[in-house]
C-alpha cells in the first residue's frame, strides 16, 4: 500500500491488477460486460428473411393454422410398468446408502434415485465421519456415471472385443507366466477395502508369481512412515481439530486437501461458532503457497516448504530449550539436534513477521496439551518426524483422535516401483494389470514406465474410460462406476462403510473385483453377482463375527446395507514416543528458487479430468477454472519480470515444462507452486489437454517420493497463454473508489476481542435508511437464508451441490473467459492489506431474493417478480432475454443462457441421451436466450408444502434444506422461515453480527451474512 493512499479501513482488492489501479480494470468496471460478451452475433449469419417478410409469413401461417385446425394434438403416450417394482413410486425419490470412492477417505453417501436412475449424491447423515456432508469432488462424481466417454465394451488394442475372448486370453497368459516363472504385477491405488484386499490375496494365492503394488500420485506415505518411526504403529490417528485451541498448520491444507477434509472442516469450524463465542480456536498457518487453509488463518507466515523442517526444529528449540517449557526430556541426539537451531536466527534469515512468530510461541506454550502442529502430506518424512517431536514437547497427543486409519495394503516404496520397472524391462514380468490406476500418467517419464510396458507379454488396464495407460496396454477393460458396484470399506479401523449398486450396469462392463474373481475361479462362468456373493461371504466370516449381535446374518446384512455404515467399539492403545527416530535428520537450507508440487483441489489424481462440473469449479484461492498454472509471489514475479498469463519455462533436475504463470498474492518468495492432476492427454473430450502436466517433476528418491525441488531455473518464453478466471468479472458493481468496498459494507469484519468488548460494534457505521414507499408486509411465511462467514471456509461444496441439484450446465473455458459461467452460486474472494501479506475474506454469493428487487422493476415482460412468501421468482417461459435484470442486479448473480449450453459446449458434448439422465426432473432444463438464477431451491420448498398439506399441518421452514445448505460441511448456511422467531435463520438474522451486503441500496436482501471475527491477539485490534 503506497503512503499517499493510506487509509484506516481495510482496502479490499480482488486482484493485483486492481490493486495497482490498472486502467483495464477501471474500464471493465465502467462497462457492464466484459469485452466479447456480446460478440459472435454476426449480422451476416442472421437469416435473410426481413422482419416484414417474417411477419407476413407468420400471420399467413397463423391464419392457415387456425383455419385448418381440425384435429386434436397428439399428447403422446403413458407407458406404465408391467410389474411395478416394490418401493418405487414415480415422481418420488428413493435414497440408498453407499460409499464414495472419489478419494481414500471413503465418506458415507446417500444416493438419490428417481425412477431408478441416480440424480444426486449427498453425504450419509448416519456416517460418523462425514456426518451427512460431502466434498465438491464427491458431489460431482455422479457425472462420471453418465460420462459419454465411458468405455462401453472391452478393447483389444483399439478394436472392440468381448469378455469371453478377454477371459480365455488372460487366463492362458497367466498360466504361461507362471510356468515361465514370470511375475504377474498388479498395480492398484490405495486399498481401503478389506474385501478387495482379501480378493487380492486370493489372487496371489491362485497365481503364485503375482505381486500387488499399491501406489498413488499423492499419498500420505511420508506422514505414515514418520508415524511408524515415532510411534511404531501403522495406524494413523485422525486429528480432533475441535479439541485444539491453537492449530499450527505447516503447509498443510487440512481444510481443503489433506486427509479427511470434511471431518476436519466440521471440527475446525465447530470452534468458530458465534452463537457460542467463548471458545474460538486460533489458526496459524505457515505455508509457501496460498491455500484454502491459509485463507482462513488468523495469522499467516510465509515459509517455503523446504524450510519447514528448520522452522519446526527452531520452534522446538525455542519452546523446549530457550523457554524451558518441554513436556518431555530431550536427551542425546535429539537434544543436540534441536539445540543447533535458533528461532530468532530463522526469523531474521527469512524475514518472517516477528510479532506473529512471538504470538505463535506464546500461544503454543500457553495452550500446551490443547494445541496441534500439523504438517502437510507433501512435506518430507523428516519434517513429519520433527512435527511429532514438537507435538510431544508440547504434550499435544490428546488432540489425536482415537479413530485411526490403516491401509489394507501397504503403499510400496519408491525402490519397489523402480525394481518393478527394471524387471519389466528385463522381461521378468509376464502380465501387468492396472487395477484402475494410470501409472503412465502418474509416474515421471524418467522412470521409463511407458517403454517398459511394451516389453511385457500382456498388459491389462481396468478403467471406466480410455486413459494414458490403457492406450499403451493390450487390453482395456471397462469397469463399473461406483454407483454400479458392490464393496466394503474401512473408513476408519473401526468403521465399516458399505457400497451397493443403485443402478444396473449401463454398459458391458464388469466390476474390477468381479473380473479378477472370474479369473481366479477359471472354470466358473461369469455372472454379475459373483463379487456380491464373495463380499457377503467375507462379511459373514470375518466381519459379522466381530459384532456381538443376536440377529442372524441375513438381517444383519440387510440392516447394514440400509444404514450403509457399521461402527465397532474403539480400542485405542496409548502412544509411546520413540525419540531416537530423529537420529538421522539432516537439514538442507537453500536460497535458490524452489518448485513445490501440490495436490489440486477437485480433480483427484487426474481421474476426474473429464468431469466438466469439476473443471469449471474455480480454484478456491485464485478463482481460475479449467487450468493449472505456476503460481509465484508478486515480488518474485517482478524480480523475474513475469506477468499473469506469461508462459514460463521451468527447468529442474534435468526436466522442463512450459507453463502459464499466475501471480498469487501471499505466496512465499522464490517459490513456484504447481498443482498436479492436470494435463491429461487421453482423458476424453472434456479433460484432454486441459492444463499442464507437471508430474515429471516428481522425484522418486531412494527412500521417498519428493514433491519439492530446489535449484529451479525459470526463464520467460515470450509466449502468452490465457488463463480463465472468474475473479475479475462478476465483480460486485462497486464504485470506482477502492475504499468503497469497505464503506459499502460488502465485507464486514472484526476481531473476537472487539466483539466481546462491544457486541454491537458493527452498528457504528450503519446507514440510516428510509423508504419512500410503504414497505410490503410479509405475514406468515417468508423465506430467508443466513451465511455464517465465521464458519465458511470457501471449499465450494455448496457450488457443486447447487450445480447438480439445479441442472446447471458446463460452459467450457472460452465461455468462462468471457464471463458467461452459469453457476448460480459463487464464492467471492477479497484481499486486503498488501500483496505480500494479504488478509483474505471469502463470501458465498447467490441471489439475495431482495424485497425491493431491482431486477423485477426492469423486466419488460414481468418474467421475474415476487411471490407472497418472499421469493424472487423467475418464469423461464416468460423471459424474452433482454438481460435488463442482470444489468440492474447489484449483486451480479443472474446468469444468461447465451447458448443452449448443453448443445454448445465442446461440440454438443453434453447434448446426448446418456448425460441427460443426470438432470434433476424437478427442475426445468433451461434453453438458449433465457435468464436464470438461484431459486432458493423452490422445488424443495414445494416438497415441504406437499408434505405439509398431506399431513394437514402448517409449513415448517426448518424442514426445507436447500442443496447448498445440505452440502455445507461446516453448516455455515442456514435456511428457513424468517418470520418464525424460533427458527435458526431468524436467530442469525437478528444476531448482532448479521449484516446485508450493500445495505445502503435499500433493496432489502433476504440473505444475511454474519461478519467474520478474526481471533487475533488483542494488542493488534
Amino acid at each position, binding site marked *: 500500500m503506497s503512503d499517499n493512499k493510506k487509509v484506516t479501513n481495510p482496502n479490499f482488492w480482488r486482484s493485483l491488477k486492481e490493486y495497482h489501479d490498472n486502467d483495464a480494470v477501471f474500464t471493465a468496471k465502467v462497462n457492464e460486460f466484459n469485452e466479447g460478451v456480446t460478440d459472435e452475433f454476426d449480422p451476416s449469419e442472421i437469416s435473410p428473411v426481413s422482419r416484414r417478410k417474417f411477419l407476413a409469413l407468420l400471420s399467413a401461417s397463423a*391464419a392457415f393454422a*387456425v*383455419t385448418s*385446425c*381440425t*384435429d*386434436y*394434438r*397428439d*399428447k*403422446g*403416450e*403413458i*407407458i*406404465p*410398468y*408391467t*410389474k*411395478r417394482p416394490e418401493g418405487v*413410486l*414415480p*415422481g*418420488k425419490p428413493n435414497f440408498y446408502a453407499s460409499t464414495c470412492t472419489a478419494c481414500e477417505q471413503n465418506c458415507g453417501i446417500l444416493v438419490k434415485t428417481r425412477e431408478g436412475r441416480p440424480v444426486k449424491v449427498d453425504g450419509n447423515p448416519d456416517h460418523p465421519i462425514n456426518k451427512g456432508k460431502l466434498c465438491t469432488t464427491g458431489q460431482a462424481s455422479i457425472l462420471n456415471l453418465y460420462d459419454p466417454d465411458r468405455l462401453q465394451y472391452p478393447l483389444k488394442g483399439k478394436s472392440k472385443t468381448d469378455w469371453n475372448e478377454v477371459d480365455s486370453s488372460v487366463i492362458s497368459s497367466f498360466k504361461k507366466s507362471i510356468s515361465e516363472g514370470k511375475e504377474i504385477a498388479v498395480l492398484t491405488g490405495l486399498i481401503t477395502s478389506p474385501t478387495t484386499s482379501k480378493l487380492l490375496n486370493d489372487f496371489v494365492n491362485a497365481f503364485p508369481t503375482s505381486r500387488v503394488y499399491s501406489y498413488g500420485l499423492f499419498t500420505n506415505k511420508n506422514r505414515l512412515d514418520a508415524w511408524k518411526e515415532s510411534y511404531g504403529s501403522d495406524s494413523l490417528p485422525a486429528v480432533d481439530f475441535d479439541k485444539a485451541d491453537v492449530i499450527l498448520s505447516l503447509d498443510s491444507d487440512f481444510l481443503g486437501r489433506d486427509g479427511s477434509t470434511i471431518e476436519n472442516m466440521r471440527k475446525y469450524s465447530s470452534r468458530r461458532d458465534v452463537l457460542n463465542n467463548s471458545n474460538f480456536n486460533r489458526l496459524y498457518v505457515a505455508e509457501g503457497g496460498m491455500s484454502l487453509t491459509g485463507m482462513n488463518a488468523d495469522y499467516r507466515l510465509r515459509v517455503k516448504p523446504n524450510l519447514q523442517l528448520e522452522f519446526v526444529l527452531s520452534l522446538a528449540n525455542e519452546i523446549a530449550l530457550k523457554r524451558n517449557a518441554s513436556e518431555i526430556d530431550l536427551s542425546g541426539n535429539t537434544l543436540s539436534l534441536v539445540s543447533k537451531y535458533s528461532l530468532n536466527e530463522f526469523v531474521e534469515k527469512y524475514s518472517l513477521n516477528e510479532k506473529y512468530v512471538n504470538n505463535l510461541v506464546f500461544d503454543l506454550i500457553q495452550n500446551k496439551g490443547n494445541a496441534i502442529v500439523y504438517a502437510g502430506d507433501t512435506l518430507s518424512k523428516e519434517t513429519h518426524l520433527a512435527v511429532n517431536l514438537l507435538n510431544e514437547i508440547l504434550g499435544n497427543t490428546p488432540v489425536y483422535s482415537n479413530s485411526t486409519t490403516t491401509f489394507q495394503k501397504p503403499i510400496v516404496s519408491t525402490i519397489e516401483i523402480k525394481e518393478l520397472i527394471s524387471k519389466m524391462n528385463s522381461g521378468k514380468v509376464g502380465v501387468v494389470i492396472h487395477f484402475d490406476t494410470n501409472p503412465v500418467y502418474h509416474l515421471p517419464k524418467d522412470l521409463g514406465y511407458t517403454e517398459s510396458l511394451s516389453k511385457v507379454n500382456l498388459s491389462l488396464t481396468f478403467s471406466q474410460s480410455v486413459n494414458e495407460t490403457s492406450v499403451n496396454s493390450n487390453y482395456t477393460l471397462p469397469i463399473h462406476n461406483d454407483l454400479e458396484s458392490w464393496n466394503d470399506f474401512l473408513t476408519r479401523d473401526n468403521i465399516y462403510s458399505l457400497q451397493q449398486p443403485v443402478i444396473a450396469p449401463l454398459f458391458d462392463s464388469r466390476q474390477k473385483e468381479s473380473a479378477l474373481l472370474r479369473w481366479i475361479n477359471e472354470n466358473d462362468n461369469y455372472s454379475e453377482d459373483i463379487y456380491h456373493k464373495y463380499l457377503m461371504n467375507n462379511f459373514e466370516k470375518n466381519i459379522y463375527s466381530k459384532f456381538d449381535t443376536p440377529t442372524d446374518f441375513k438381517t444383519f446384512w440387510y440392516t447394514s446395507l440400509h444404514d450403509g455404515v457399521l461402527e465397532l467399539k474403539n480400542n485405542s492403545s496409548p502412544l509411546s514416543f520413540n525419540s531416537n527416530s530423529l537420529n538421522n535428520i539432516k537439514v538442507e537450507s537453500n536460497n535458490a528458487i524452489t518448485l513445490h508440487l501440490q495436490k489440486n483441489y477437485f480433480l483427484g489424481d487426474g481421474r476426474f479430468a473429464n468431469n466438466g462440473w469439476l473443471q469449471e469449479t474455480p480454484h478456491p484461492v485464485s478463482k481460475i477454472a479449467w487450468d493449472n498454472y505456476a503460481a509465484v509471489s508478486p515480488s518474485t514475479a517482478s524480480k523475474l519480470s513475469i506477468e499473469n498469463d506469461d508462459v514460463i519455462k521451468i527447468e529442474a533436475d534435468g526436466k522442463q515444462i512450459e507453463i502459464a504463470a499466475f501471480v498469487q498474492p501471499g505466496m512465499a518468495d522464490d517459490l513456484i507452486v504447481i498443482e498436479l492432476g492436470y494435463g491429461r492427454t487421453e482423458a476424453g473430450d472434456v479433460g484432454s489437454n486441459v492444463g499442464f502436466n507437471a508430474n515429471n517433476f516428481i522425484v522418486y528418491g531412494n527412500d521417498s517420493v519428493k514433491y519439492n525441488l530446489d535449484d529451479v531455473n525459470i526463464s520467460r518464453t515470450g509466449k502468452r497463454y490465457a488463463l480463465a478466471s472468474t475473479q475479475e468479472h462478476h465483480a460486485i458493481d462497486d464504485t470506482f473508489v477502492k475504499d468503497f468496498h469497505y464503506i459499502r459494507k460488502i465485507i464486514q469484519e472484526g476481531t473476537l476481542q472487539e466483539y466481546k468488548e462491544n457486541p454491537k460494534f458493527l452498528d457504528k457505521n450503519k446507514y440510516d435508511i428510509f423508504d419512500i414507499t410503504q414497505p410490503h408486509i410479509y405475514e406468515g411465511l417468508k423465506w430467508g437464508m443466513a451465511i455464517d462467514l465465521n464458519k465458511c471456509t470457501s471449499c465450494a461444496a455448496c457450488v457443486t451441490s447447487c450445480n447438480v441439484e439445479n441442472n446447471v450446465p458446463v460452459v467450457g473455458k472460452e465461455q468462462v473467459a468471457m464471463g458467461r459461467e452459469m453457476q448460480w452460486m459463487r464464492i467471492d474472494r477479497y484481499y486486503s492489506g498488501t500483496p505480500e501479506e494479504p488478509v483474505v475474506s471469502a463470501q458465498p454469493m447467490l441471489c439475495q431474493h431482495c424485497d425491493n428487487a431491482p431486477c423485477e422493476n426492469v423486466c419488460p415482460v414481468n418474467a421475474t*417478480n415476487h*411471490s*407472497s*412468501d418472499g*421469493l424472487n*421468482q*423467475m*418464469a*423461464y*417461459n*416468460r423471459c424474452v432475454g433482454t438481460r435488463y435484470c442482470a444489468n440492474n442486479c447489484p449483486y451480479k448473480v443472474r446468469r444468461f443462457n447465451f447458448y443452449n449450453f448443453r448443445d454448445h459446449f465442446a461440440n454438443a458434448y453434453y447434448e446426448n441421451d446418456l448425460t441427460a439422465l443426470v438432470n434433476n426432473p*424437478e*427442475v*426445468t432444463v433451461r434453453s438458449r436466450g433465457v435468464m436464470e438464477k438461484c*431459486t432458493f431451491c*423452490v*422445488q424443495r*420448498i*414445494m416438497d415441504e*408444502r*406437499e408434505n405439509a*398439506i*398431506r399431513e*394437514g399441518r402448517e409449513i415448517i421452514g426448518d424442514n426445507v434444506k436447500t442443496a447448498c445448505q445440505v452440502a455445507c460441511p461446516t453448516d455455515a448456511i442456514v435456511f428457513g422461515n424468517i418470520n418464525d422467531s424460533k427458527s435458526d435463520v431468524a436467530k442469525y438474522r437478528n444476531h448482532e453480527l448479521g449484516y446485508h451486503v450493500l445495505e445502503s441500496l435499500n433493496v432489502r436482501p433476504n440473505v444475511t451474512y454474519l461478519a467474520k471475527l478474526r481471533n487475533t491477539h488483542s494488542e493488534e485490534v
Partner: protein
Amino acid sequence: MKKTLLDYTLKIRLPLTLFVIAITFVITFYVSRAERDGIGYAPEQPIAFSHQLHAGLMEIDCQYCHTGIEKGRHALVPSVSTCMNCHSVARKNQPEIIRLTEYYENGKPLPWKRIHKVPDYAYFNHSVHVNNGIDCATCHGDVANMDVVQQVKGFTMGDCLECHRNPEQHLPYLEKVKVGPENCAACHR
C-alpha cells in the same frame, strides 16, 4: 379528382379483405377453441378399457388403480400387474383380456394414449389437490360414466388460475376452501 384503381383498392378492397380475414379468424378462433385446448379429445386406446364398466358399474375406487396420488406429484396409470390382480381369473377368454395378458406375460410396454396433459414446464402436483379434498371429477369430468375417456375440461394456465382465484365457485362441495397460490414458482421452477 379522378378515382384511380389505387383509391378503389385502398378504400374498398383492402378494408373488405381485412374484414373478411378478421371475421374468419375470430370465428375459427372461437369455434376451434375447444379442440385447441384438447377438450373432447378421446383417442382410441390400445386396450378398449371401459371406465364406465369398472368405475361406474362396479364402483371400483379411482385410487385402486391410480395409486400414489395422495403421496406424490403424479397420478399413476396402473401397472399391467394391477389389471392382472383380477384378470388373471376374471373374463380370461375375452379378446381384450387375452391381449392384455399378452402384454403382461411378454413384458411388453403397454402404450396408453395420454389424454390429460399439462406442459412439462408446469409442475402440477396431484397430491396437494387431492389432499385438500378436491374431487378427481372436478378436473377430469365424470370419468365413471365414460365408455371411452375424453377430456372435458381445459388444462391451460388460464383454467388453472380461474379455479385458484375463485375456488368456492368451482369447488362448491368443499366446506372450507382457501384460494390457491398464484405465484409463478407454485408451478414453474
